Every structure is written in C-alpha cells, then in structure tokens.
C-alpha cells in the first residue's frame, strides 16, 4: 500500500498549474538593480510628494543595515536583490475607464475568472486588479463613493487622499519592522487603499486580484485598510502568477486599522505559482500582514487559504490595543512537491478583555514542508485576556513534514490560554471506509481534507469558499493511492 501511495504521489507531481500562462503586453520595466536613484525614479513616475520619497529612502537606508531573517523553517538559495527589476507596468496608461484598459489585460483577468466588466460583475464584489507593479482597474468606484467608501489603487490614494496615507502608512508596520517590510516600504509600487467612513457597513465585498506577469521582477504591493468607528468591511485577496523557471520575489505589506466598534474581515486565497516537481521556479512569498484593533470593541479577522508559492513566509497578526477587542486567524496551508510554508500568526493582547482565536490547518503532501509558527503575547495591562489556539496537521505520504512552533508570552496572571495541537496521517481506515462505499481515492482525499478544513472554510465568504474547495480538489488530485 505504501509503495502504491508513493507512486501515485509521484504521479501527482505532474499536476498542471492552470494559471501559468503569460500575457504578451508592452511594458515599461526598470533595469535590474536597487539604489537611491531607482527609488527616486519610481517615486517620480508616481508623482509622489516629497515626504513619501523621504519615507522610502529612510526605509531603504534601514533595509541596507538589516539582515535577511534566517529563523524560519525554510531553505532557499540567497536572493540577489540587485538582479531584480523593481518596476514593471503595462505601457498603456489606462486608469480612467475600463474601455481604456489594454484588452490583453482584460482577457488575462477573464482567463483567471475575474471579470472587470461591471456588467458581468461578480455578485456583490468590487475588484481592484493589480498587474505586476500597478493597479490596472478598480470596479464599482462610483457605487462605493455614494456610501463614502474609498476604494482605489494605492498610487491614486497618494494623490487624492494624501492626509489619510500620511497618517496611517507605516502606523501598524513601521519600516523598521523586518527585512522584507523595510524592502517593501522602500520600493512598493502600488496596491489597494480602502477607507470606510464612520458607521458605514460597506455594501460590497472588496477584492484585490494580484497578478505577477513580467519576468525577473519583484512584486511589492502595499495594502492599507482603515475602518473608521462603527464601520464594517469584508475584503478578499487573490493571487496567481505565470509558470517561470526562475524564482520570483513577492514581498507585500498589508496594514489594517480598526477604530472603535469597527470590524475588518480579510480573506486571502493565495495561489501563486509553486514551482515544478523538482522545486524549480515558483514565487518566494515574503509577506507582512498586520492589523491593529485601535479602538475598543473592534475586531480584525484574518482568513487565509495558502496553496501556492515555492516559499511562504507569512504571519498575519493582530494587535489588540482597544479594550474588548477581538483578533482572529483562520488558516489552511497546503504544501506539495517541494513547497515550503512557514506561516502562522501573532496575537498581541494589550487591552483589557481582549480575545483571540487561532485555528490553523496544515496539509502536507509530496515532499512539502509545512510549519505553523504562532505567537501569543499577553501584556501587563491586558486583564482577562483570552486565547484559544488549535493547530492541526495532516500528512499525506511519507516524504512530507509538519512542524509546530507555538510561542506564548504571558505577563498578566488573569490570562486564560488554551492550546490544542494534533498531527495525523491521512487515515487509511478513513480512505478504506470511503472506498467501501464506492467513493474513489481522489474524491475520498478531497472529502477528508475538506472536512478537516471545514472550520476555516466556514469563515470564508461564500464564493471564496467554493473556490477554496475546488482548489483543494485540484491540488490534491492523485496525492494518495
């Protein structure tokens, strides 16, 4: 049985990545290399105010003094930061209306199942489409603006809403935070910006779809979401990239700020190209995501389904500053072939009666390595803070690995902590039970894994939950025999 499993797992390694095509579009692209001039040029193209250029340069100066972190449970060849291009954008400038967007790009998004045509809108979802270094289209802006909601590309926000940017940029993730955040701060090219005014429940799901197309480029986007007092927003993020032999760097920053009584729900389906069966190619995904529950009774919830990337290094975190604020992290991470994921969260309790929940589900197949790394910090003044953590792993086959590193730091004696962790092989008896009822192995595996991930999928908005289920079916096809 084991041998047969292995053969079929090996067969699985030929699975195709259906988003691996490239788009042939005329582009402006910087020569490889990074220095102050490159940053100035980037800032100049974007017509940025001086304070922002200065901020970038300070970040760059800081980055140069920092060292790439080595503590994560991942292995990769050193990245040559001077060999990357830091800006790539489609040549046609096309932000005014969809009619002006390059048809090649519209077609790209259609192929990815993302319609930028408002007539054929995704039910109740407004989309910001980021293609390489720039946002190419944002839908439903007018409709949203009726409610006072600002949803636009980051570059546009810098022009139109400089005060908000100046106030909040780096307020949750300072450029001194970590190596990749510092790099991002220096060279970020675009991203999405959201502002939800007081007491507004955002009428549409907001969504950004990130697409890396150009070769030899890094993608450094920056997302900033501000939910003002009593407001509510649900935001979705999707990502894909072409199949290329070389590794590509993606180092994003996402900052969330929830004021008093505000709720932000942030969902990600990450399906960057993961590399081939020999571990060649694929995206290096080094992402810093952090939310601040600034006001009392605010809530930030991260849900992620991570199936792509050669390397995932990502810890969406919540700082619970306000009293009675809530932080949540729901994660499914799947690694197969030679994929490596080191992902988890940090929950920092500062306010009184703050409450956090962590549910992490890791699935490893092939030679995939899956690490959960989670920190829970309860500070001195966080009376009656509560945390519940549950980290479960499933192994499919005998060449993969699952690792769990929980860090707990409690400085207040009234804290209540609960931690549960399990690791199991996908049960042969479960598979046999399904087979005995006439259900084939592929269906049985996806059924069992979907069941395993149920608590997380339930947190996803409806259309994403369906996509996530299908993604798991495709990803794990032929992974057991």
């Amino acid at each position, binding site marked *: *049985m084991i041998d047969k499993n292995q053969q079929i797992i090996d067969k699985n390694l030929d699975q195709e990545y259906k988003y691996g095509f490239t788009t042939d579009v005329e582009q402006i692209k910087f020569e490889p290399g990074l220095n102050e001039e490159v940053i100035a040029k980037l800032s100049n193209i974007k017509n940025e105010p001086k304070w922002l250029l200065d901020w970038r340069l300070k970040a760059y100066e800081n980055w140069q003094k920092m060292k790439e972190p080595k503590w994560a449970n991942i292995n990769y060849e050193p990245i040559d930061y001077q060999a990357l291009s830091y800006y790539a954008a489609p040549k046609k400038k096309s932000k005014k209306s969809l009619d002006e967007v390059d048809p090649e790009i519209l077609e790209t998004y259609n192929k990815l199942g993302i319609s930028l045509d408002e007539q054929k809108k995704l039910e109740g979802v407004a989309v910001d489409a980021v293609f390489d270094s720039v946002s190419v289209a944002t839908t439903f802006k007018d409709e949203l603006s009726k409610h006072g909601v600002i949803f636009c590309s980051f570059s546009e926000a810098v022009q139109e809403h400089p005060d908000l940017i100046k106030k909040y940029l780096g307020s949750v993730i300072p450029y001194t935070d970590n190596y990749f955040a510092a790099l991002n701060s220096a060279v970020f090219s675009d991203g999405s910006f959201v502002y939800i005014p007081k007491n507004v429940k955002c009428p549409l799901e907001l969504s950004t779809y990130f697409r890396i197309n150009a070769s030899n480029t890094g993608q450094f986007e920056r997302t900033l979401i501000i939910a003002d007092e009593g407001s509510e927003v649900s935001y979705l993020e999707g990502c894909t990239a072409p199949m290329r032999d070389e590794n590509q760097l993606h180092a994003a920053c996402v900052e969330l700020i929830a004021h008093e009584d505000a709720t932000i729900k942030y969902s990600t389906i990450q399906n960057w190209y993961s590399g081939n069966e020999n571990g060649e190619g694929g995206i290096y995904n080094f992402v810093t995501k952090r939310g601040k529950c600034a006001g009392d009774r605010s809530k930030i919830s991260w849900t992620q389904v991570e199936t792509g990337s050669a390397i995932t290094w990502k810890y969406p975190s919540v700082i619970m500053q306000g009293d009675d604020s809530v932080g949540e992290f729901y994660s499914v991470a799947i690694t197969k072939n030679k994929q490596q994921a080191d992902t988890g969260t940090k929950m920092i309790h500062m306010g009184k009666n703050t409450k956090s929940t962590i549910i992490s589900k890791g699935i490893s197949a092939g030679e995939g390595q899956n690490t959960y790394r989670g920190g829970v910090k309860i500070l001195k003044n966080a009376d009656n803070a509560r945390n519940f953590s549950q980290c479960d792993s499933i192994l499919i086959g005998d060449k993969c690995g699952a690792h769990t590193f929980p860090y707990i730091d409690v400085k207040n004696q009234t804290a209540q902590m609960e931690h549960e962790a399990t690791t199991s092989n996908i*049960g*042969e*008896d*479960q598979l*046999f*039970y*399904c*087979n*005995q*009822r*006439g*259900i*084939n*192995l592929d*269906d049985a595996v996806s*059924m*069992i894994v*979907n*069941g*395993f*991930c*149920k*608590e997380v999928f339930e947190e996803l908005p409806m259309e994403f939950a369906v996509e996530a289920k299908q993604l798991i079916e495709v990803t794990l096809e032929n992974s057991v025999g």
Partner: protein
Amino acid sequence: MIDIKNLKVSVEEKEILKGINLEIPEGEVHAIMGRNGSGKSTLANTLAGNEKFEVTDGLIHMNGLDITEMSAENRSLNGIFVCFQYPVAIPGVSMAYFLRAAINAHLENQGKEEMDALEFLNQSKEILKKLNLDDSFLKRSINDGFSGGEKKKSEIFQLLSLNPKFAILDETDSGLDIDALKIVADGVKEFNGKKNSTLIITHYERLLEYINPDVVHIMIDGKIVKSGDMKLARQVEEKGYSWLAK
C-alpha cells in the same frame, strides 16, 4: 451469489483465516458465530477488500466473477457492503454529503444519472424515520461523536440507502439495547426482503432470533467447524463453544 473457496488470510504475516469454505446463495441469510479472535472480523474485512488483510490462498467469487484481487471501491460498486463493527469518524464531512457521493458513484458506475438533492433527501428521510433517527442526522459529521447505537444505525441507514446485493453485518448487534436491536433487525429484514444476500457476524444469537437466518455457521480458530440452522445457534448460546472445538 457469494462463493468462498479455501480462503486463507494473513495479517502482518500471521495466518488468521485457515481455509474458509462458504457459499451464500441469492436471497439467503447466513450467520457466522464465534468467539472473539476466531477470525470473524477478518473475514468481513477480507470480503470488503481491505488491503491490510492479505489473501494467501483461495478464491472469492461473486455471481461467477472472481473478485479475489478486486479493489475495495470496485467491490462496493459490484454490490458488496459492510456494516462495520467500529466505523471510522470523518470529522467535518456530513452524512448527506458522504452518502450522496457514494450513491452517485454507484449510479455513475451503472451508467445512470445522478440522484438529485431533493430525491436524495426524500429517500433519506423515509429511511431515517424507519430507523427512528432525526433528519438532522444528515447534517452531522460521519460517526463523529456518535453514540455506539447511532454508529450501528448509521451503518444500517447507509445499507438501506445504497441497497447493495450482498451485505456483511460485522457485530452490528453488539452494544445495542433491545429497542435499537429490534429496529436494526427490522432494517435487515427489509433489506433481505429484496432478494439480497446477507452474512451476519455475531457473538450472540439474540439478533438471530429476530432475523431467523437460513444457515448458521460456527467459526473457531479461522475455520468453519459446524453448520446448521437456528437450533445450532441456540445450542451455542446455551453451551458455549468449547464442545464444538475438535
């Protein structure tokens, strides 16, 4: 229907079944009684095609087709069903989702159209009612947090839903109170009324009193040592197994 010839089976190199001969014609109910460890569950698992159980000799035929080497999935599609003694839990997978997938796999194999959700729901509700189970049973994760009785009823529910040609009940009566036992017995009788064949594996003759099998076999140490009718089952209940050994 089922014809087993000189079946020898090992688990982890240890021989458990030591030459079983058993023929169950269409429409008949046979029972196998035996002590713990006599090889009864090994027989059930082997017939189901569990690969942990290695057939070292002998043949299994079903309606003339040699199924000795057939996969568990194909055996199921050919009409073999096992009510497991200890059915495994699959957390997060609802009974409705699971059972409908199973039914549709069978229909697809027969070249038929999928059963739509409404038809499935109506059929399920009817069967659940007979088993004195609530409709909410369909929403629960399979065997996850089920009581012993619920697990057994769940197996009978699946049996009646899939309506196979040949059912093996592995200790389906153990751990049931008298009401549940009657319900299970009625389920089995209903199943058997449809010209299907059944093999009941049990310790006790209790269930057999309700079902009245055509043939009763006694298994000791991996072999069938004696076959007879209900009288034999009652004798065993009264005197135990020792007088049958040797």
